[in-house]
């Protein structure tokens, strides 16, 4: 009986891992899209995430606005914030700092994150209070499949998240807008040569990514709670998944990598305590990086372009 019980626990953890991992996957898709197309290290993604999750819950709880319109407001606010980051901050900084643009944009993005979290707290709570907002919308009724349990919210979240990734994949592949985005990513010089306005494409990518992140944030809020700092841990997962999967890969592949990461993390709960789970995740990342460094350790190729070469930057 103990074996069966431990198998059941194992499957429970695994299912938990799939639910979490799917979310990680969409985070990676969202973040990875930005880095692959625009090369901005948009750490302030964490704030966009928090704006959608926290703001929506706050609006629902503190004003009469029903859930659906509140979601629209939250998503719109997050999209506006992300677009503003690119158009008002990253673009001018990149222009001023030339070859150091990557570092400077990253540092600025972090500054936005730090300031953003604090400002949200100050403006909404006047600085005091725990600031946790919860959102109830989709019922969390338990579902049992055999001996294993999950909630309906979990199931819906997995379906929706994968559907979003599939939608992105589809539009990148089959729509004109998607084609333009891929064009900018693959060969920026040629994109300009065919008349694509690359600056607008960058902003568009930020908006799309923030909407995807917003979906994850909403489910996060519904499954646990929302606060202004809720984006900090997710942005790390987004980072890890995006780079582990490889920049420029298909959204479906990134989803698979994220889900796998979630399962590994979930199943490791069987063997290590919760505290060490995060260590496992970052240990894996560090290992990945050291391996990549080792691959590049050859005298003739000092700086191996570990990311897919971006072509045609004038």
């Amino acid at each position, binding site marked *: 009986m103990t074996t069966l019980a431990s198998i059941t626990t194992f499957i429970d953890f695994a299912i938990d891992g799939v639910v979490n991992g799917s979310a990680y996957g969409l985070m990676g898709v969202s973040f990875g899209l930005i880095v692959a197309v625009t090369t901005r290290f948009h750490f302030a993604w964490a704030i966009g995430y928090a704006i959608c999750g926290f703001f929506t819950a706050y609006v629902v709880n503190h004003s009469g606005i029903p859930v659906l319109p509140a979601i629209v407001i939250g998503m719109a606010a997050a999209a506006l914030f992300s677009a503003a980051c690119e158009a008002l901050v990253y673009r001018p900084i990149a222009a001023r700092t030339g070859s*150091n643009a990557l570092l400077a944009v990253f540092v600025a993005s972090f500054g936005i994150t730090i*300031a*953003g979290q*604090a400002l949200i707290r100050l403006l909404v709570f006047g*600085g005091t209070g725990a600031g946790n907002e919860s959102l109830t919308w989709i019922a969390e009724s338990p579902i049992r499949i055999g001996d294993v349990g999950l909630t309906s919210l979990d199931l819906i979240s997995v379906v929706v998240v994968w559907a979003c990734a599939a939608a992105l994949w589809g539009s990148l592949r089959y729509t004109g807008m998607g084609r333009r985005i891929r064009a900018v990513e693959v060969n920026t010089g040629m994109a300009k040569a065919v008349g694509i306005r690359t600056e607008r494409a960058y902003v568009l990518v930020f908006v799309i990514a923030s909407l995807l992140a917003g979906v994850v944030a909403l489910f996060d809020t519904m499954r646990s709670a929302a606060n202004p700092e809720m984006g900090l841990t997710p942005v790390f997962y987004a980072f*890890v998944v995006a780079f582990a999967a490889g920049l420029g890969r298909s959204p479906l592949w990134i989803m698979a990598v994220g889900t796998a990461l979630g399962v590994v993390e979930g199943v490791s709960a069987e063997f290590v305590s919760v505290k060490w789970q995060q260590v496992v995740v970052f240990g894996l990342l560090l290992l990945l990086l050291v391996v990549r460094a080792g691959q590049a350790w050859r005298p003739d190729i*000092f700086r191996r372009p570990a*990311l897919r070469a971006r072509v045609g930057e004038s």
Partner: protein
Amino acid sequence: MEHFYDDATIIAIYAIYAMSLNLLLGYAGQLSVAHAAFGGVGGYTAAYLATLQGWTFVPSLLVGVAAAAVIGALIALPALYLDVRYLILLTLAFSTAITAVIAAIPELGGRVGLSPVPSAELFGGEPLLRPSQFFPLALGCGLVVLAICARLAHSPFGRVLRGIRDDELATRGIGKNIVLYKVAVFGVASGLAGLGGVLFVYYTAVAQVAAFDLSESMLIIAMIVIGGTANLLGSILGAGLVVMLERTLQNMLDLDPSVSALWRLAIYGGLIVLFLMVRPQGILPERWTPLAVVRALRRRLRGEPGAGLASPALATAGAGFADPGAIAVDGAAADGEPRPLARSGGLGAPPARARSNGRPDGEVVLEAVGLSKRFGGIRAAEDLTLQLRRGQVTGLIGPNGAGKTTVFNLLTGVVTPDAGTVTLEGRDIGTWTIDRIARAGMARTYQDVRIFPRMTVLENVAMAVPDQPGENFTTALARPIASHRGERDARARAIERLEFVGLAERADAIAGALPFGEQKLLALARLLATEADVLLLDEPASGIDIDWIERMLEAIARLRDEGKCICIVEHNLHVVERSADWVYFLEEGQVTAEGSMRELMGQERLAEVYFGSG
């Protein structure tokens, strides 16, 4: 009064963090968002030893610093081979991993941390309990850190760091083994951060993870961004500003501590963004060192005209995040007229060379036999054989895509050949690294010049002088006299090279502000300073006007007469005709013809290949 000492101590500790990070980020150009995490390594090590092993202050401090330094040096190793994007990820992951690990190890107290940490006492003296007692210790450590950072930054060692920051490839190309420098600077910066962490832990009597997390690291970066990257005084200024900001918010505005903490975060986050958008180099730009400020003030007081600190060339030559290419010009046109050469000795017309059908005699210094290299499906070099001889100029010509740059890359170790050998004065250098080959006597210039734009003309050339004692880490720190003497020699030799190319009068100009023609001559002077015998010049005549080309040709001719072995890749066939004694014609990675330029021009097939066949 205690309040003042409290503020001062905190400022001193943060200044230690900021100065050490500045060494890493501002001078060496290596981004680390894990600086506070190294502070955590040092702090927690010391706290553990003190609380759970009963160690006294000084030993705990030393071990803490050592632990941080060692781990920092270890982190440098994968960092060497990672793209800058992965470096960000690496330090980000490290920072989070360290805090996660610390929080998870039960002996370290988890989220609550270790406390109380016994008071610091120096060698059995009084325990330093009150801020006024602790401050002298903090100040003393701060001054030591300032001394270390200043010594390193302003020594030849620091100059190499700046070279790594501005152009790593060019720095390797003049013979510097950057692996050693990177490991050293990571180790030192992390160790000093560890010192800051130890002081912090003893001062606050508690070791808590939250004091060493990512936001703390960003706080330190903010201090540098605001105060001034690559300026140690700026680090102190930045630390002071940020700490006082919080104090002001708390005291003067009489705010609740949690509220003022939030405002502090909001403000310094906003300041980071603002500064990066408006003034990326920070308040105090790189060249505003105390010495420079004093000199400029003296000049101002004496009413002397001339470049003070207000000179645009100095003021905008900022470091850190400012665009290295966008140095302002003080009024001069983009490409001015070349100045007349120094009268001393005068170059005069190159001696007439007899035109013979065979190659002029000369000792073979460099020989490449059967070099092959493929990049994917492209044959960049195919069974390539050539010789470079002492006292001769050899030209490499060929249509686009013929593989000329690949030849240089294969010879200098930028690319390893798939097959074939490269022999330099009898030694097989096929597998050697770029810097080792440069030190062995073969170095090159680059088509895109690659001078160090933020350094002066003199510094550019001085850096290339080999065997400088001051570039050694321990010498720079511990033997200032030897270092200084070596530097004087290096500068003297640099001035000689500058005189050769006619740029001696521009020795103190910022290299990035020079017109392109002078930059090319500067690159040549820098090359000569390496004392390499084999000089590979990549398109020395491209991008410059007739007059500059003349100067370049004179210099090349004179070098040849002095016995150097020179190889030039050129597209301007006039230049090749005038300067080369022997020419190799490259096509699709192979040498298909060789001879004097005149002979080659007479071959119709070559004309076909170059201009196309009918």
